[in-house]
């Protein structure tokens, strides 16, 4: 019954590769977010968007970019993957900031 979808679920990729993590939501939410979470740790904001053609950087935005061409779609691109990018990436959306709905996440391993 997930209303926010992330693909791929798992990804192993070599250093230096360019990758795009996909996130789509069917709830019509204007606000979308990307978080990075290492095991047992808190969530760190990477990027966020308050609507189409609106994107902002969070605390950990270096070496990644996002786009928001359609309300439902908010992909995250790593231009050149590094082992330090190994982590879980969570996409979320919200309506009026009342509670975030998270996707199932992408577990990325860079070798």
């Amino acid at each position, binding site marked *: 019954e997930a209303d926010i979808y992330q693909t791929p679920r798992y990804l192993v990729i070599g250093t230096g590769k360019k990758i795009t993590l996909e996130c789509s939501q069917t709830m019509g939410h204007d606000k979308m977010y990307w978080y990075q979470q290492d095991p*047992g740790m*808190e969530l760190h904001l990477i990027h966020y968007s308050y609507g189409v053609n609106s994107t902002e950087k*969070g605390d950990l935005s270096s070496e990644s970019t996002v786009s928001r061409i359609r309300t439902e779609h908010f992909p995250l691109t790593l231009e050149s993957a590094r082992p330090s990018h190994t982590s879980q990436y969570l996409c979320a959306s919200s309506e009026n900031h009342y509670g975030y709905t*998270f*996707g199932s996440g992408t577990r990325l391993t860079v070798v």
Partner: protein
Amino acid sequence: GQQVMQIPQYQHVQEGEDFTTYCNSSTTLSNIQWYKQRPGGHPVFLIQLVKSGEVKKQKRLTFQFGEAKKNSSLHITATQTTDVGTYFCAVFASGGSYIPTFGRGTSLIVHP
């Protein structure tokens, strides 16, 4: 910047025992949200607290917002194995910030 501390980091309990996690902020908050993340899963929104001294209940879970709006607690009565997971608070600083700061979470382990 906004600092938030959650304690304890881990809590082991026997099934049936109570559990409490605390979320403390260095600054006054406008509101606070609580999330639960099962092992291997993603955070799921539980509740939002807005008013000073507010108390909300969801079955065996009781959420409280401090009078000074700088701290909050989540209490689970008579834990069950289904309560296993990490409980995160997400705080919103007063003054109109719409980007929350997440705590490190408290991992609850329930022994049957």
